[in-house]
């Protein structure tokens, strides 16, 4: 049996009309009458699909088009062109029916009512989503316990700390137990303990209810902890869509060696040692740390041997290349292939 897709996107495009101001006083006067408009595509004909129950990381630099995509998928923005099916519906056309089936957390925006107690917000949302008492009690008691927000319920939102608020936001997004959850930077500005708690909770609901989760974040450790699959966006285009593991295998091969020497040599001299091999040296002049990026793991011991032969080593480290570095490399190159 073919599994149902939670999200299907085909040639999705969103353009914004922007204008540029002319310079100088003369330009400002001319702007009063005519403006230089230009069309900027924020999302550039992208296609992808997400299966029910998948947890997908949607990553990209600031301005890559992540939030715009999420806003189209949640029915807030109308696409310029392309086809979107989410939970079998067109988000923008059937907005009121559609949003019953999704939960959204915007890390930078509260969806609780600022001046009233958290439980009043919950009560209103329960009515808004038409959740029955029985369902609410069974589901939410568990959510409240897992996220440990019981003592916060009678406090007004404005008196909560960011970590407390985020946990309440997450609970609020789950009141109607939606099969699809959008999280737009849910862990922004949170401390490690709260992050861990939120990640564990997300894993749990994914296992328990087979909830599909689409997550955008700048914190790659979130993605590493939660998602098997990543979609990487750059300037409105998808530049990678696939397993996080294969991204690592393909790009994360190689090691970084860090040396500190008793007597500091010239960078040139060190570079000469590995001439002809694909090894790239960098020097941190403040700490006098020489690091060698080695793409081929087999070259690691040869490099160490050559360096150790020539200089006296005070300290040495072998580092794996981190996901963050992999992604930085990809963005610098601009594509994955």
């Amino acid at each position, binding site marked *: 049996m073919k599994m149902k897709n939670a999200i299907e996107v085909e040639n999705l495009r969103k353009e914004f009309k922007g204008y540029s101001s002319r310079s100088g006083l003369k330009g400002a006067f001319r702007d009063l009458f005519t403006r230089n408009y230009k069309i900027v595509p924020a999302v550039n004909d992208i296609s992808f699909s997400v299966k029910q129950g998948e947890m997908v990381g949607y990553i990209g630099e600031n301005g890559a088009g992540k*939030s715009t995509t999420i806003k189209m998928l949640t029915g*807030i923005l109308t696409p310029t062109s392309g086809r979107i099916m989410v939970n079998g519906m067109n988000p923008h056309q059937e907005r009121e029916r559609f949003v019953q089936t999704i939960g*959204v957390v*915007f890390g930078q925006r509260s969806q609780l009512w600022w001046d009233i107690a958290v439980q*009043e917000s919950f009560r*209103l949302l329960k009515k808004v989503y038409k959740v029955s008492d029985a369902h609410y009690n069974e589901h939410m008691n568990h959510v409240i316990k897992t996220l440990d927000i019981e003592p916060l319920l009678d406090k007004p939102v404005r008196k909560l700390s960011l970590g407390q608020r985020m946990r309440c936001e997450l609970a609020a997004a789950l009141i109607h137990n939606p099969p699809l959850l959008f999280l737009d930077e849910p862990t922004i500005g949170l401390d490690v303990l709260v992050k861990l708690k939120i990640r564990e909770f997300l894993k749990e609901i994914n296992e328990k209810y087979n909830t599909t989760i689409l997550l955008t974040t700048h914190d790659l450790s979130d993605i590493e902890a939660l998602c098997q699959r990543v979609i990487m966006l750059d300037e409105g285009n998808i530049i990678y869509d696939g397993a996080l593991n294969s991204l690592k295998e393909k790009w994360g091969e190689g090691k970084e060696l860090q040396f500190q020497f008793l007597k500091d040599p010239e960078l040139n001299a060190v570079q000469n040692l590995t001439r002809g091999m694909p090894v790239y040296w960098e020097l941190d002049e403040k700490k006098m740390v020489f690091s060698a990026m080695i793409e081929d793991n087999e070259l690691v011991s040869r490099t160490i041997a050559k360096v150790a032969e020539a200089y006296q080593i005070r300290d040495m480290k072998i580092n794996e290349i981190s996901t963050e570095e992999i992604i930085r490399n990809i963005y610098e190159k601009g594509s994955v292939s």
Partner: protein
Amino acid sequence: MDKYIEMIRIRFLMMLAYRTNYYTGILIYAINIGAYYFLWAAIYGHKTQIEGLSVVQMTTYVAIAWMARAFYFNNIDREMAVEIMEGKVAVELIRPYSYLMMKTMQGLGEGIFRLFFFSVPGMLIVSFIFPVKFTWNPAVWGLFAVSIVLSFLINTQLNLLTGITTFFLFNNSGLIRAKRVVIDLFSGLLLPISFFPGWAQGIMKYLPFQGISYIPSMIFSNGFTRQAAFHAILEQAIWVIILVLPIQVLWSLAKKQLVIQGG
């Protein structure tokens, strides 16, 4: 419908959360009514009637106009402007309800709160200090009740219209302020419409503003014949229906070209 009623309750709670606002509000309304009472007393001097209204009718008109204002007045235009400018409207659009309907209900929650905790006690105080003449005719009360509900609807619709323009103008605080002055003046809050020059009255007949304050106040102060009262209420109802159209048109245009400000 449940969710909309729940919203009224939430708005009640929010009003209660800020008690100082509530007390200062009563004070401001009392000062306003007092100021207009003495102003009109001076204008009347020894005259018994101006434009068919006696001094007592005039005082009643002023008092009731301000008390009715407490019910129909709301700031949802400004709230919408803030929500749109800060991008909070995104959160409203991911909820399964109609944003405009929810805003209207918030305005209604605020109005009902003020009616009971503000207008009614305020009216009692005012009636001890100034020579206000209440009618105990239930028919007048009934017509008045229908009329202020329609006032609320017209005023709220105008607020929604002003609020939606934020989508196109991005910053419309000037427009909001202008709209408020226009409504206070042309609705008959500051001056009964019958006091305006003839040509202005002619123009205002074709504008919705007098449905906001003039009509309910005239009904309450017995300035209208029964026939004229029915006619005026019908006029209000027609405006409520007419105003639905531009709101729907602007709203669907706004949704299409919506830009969420601030990421």
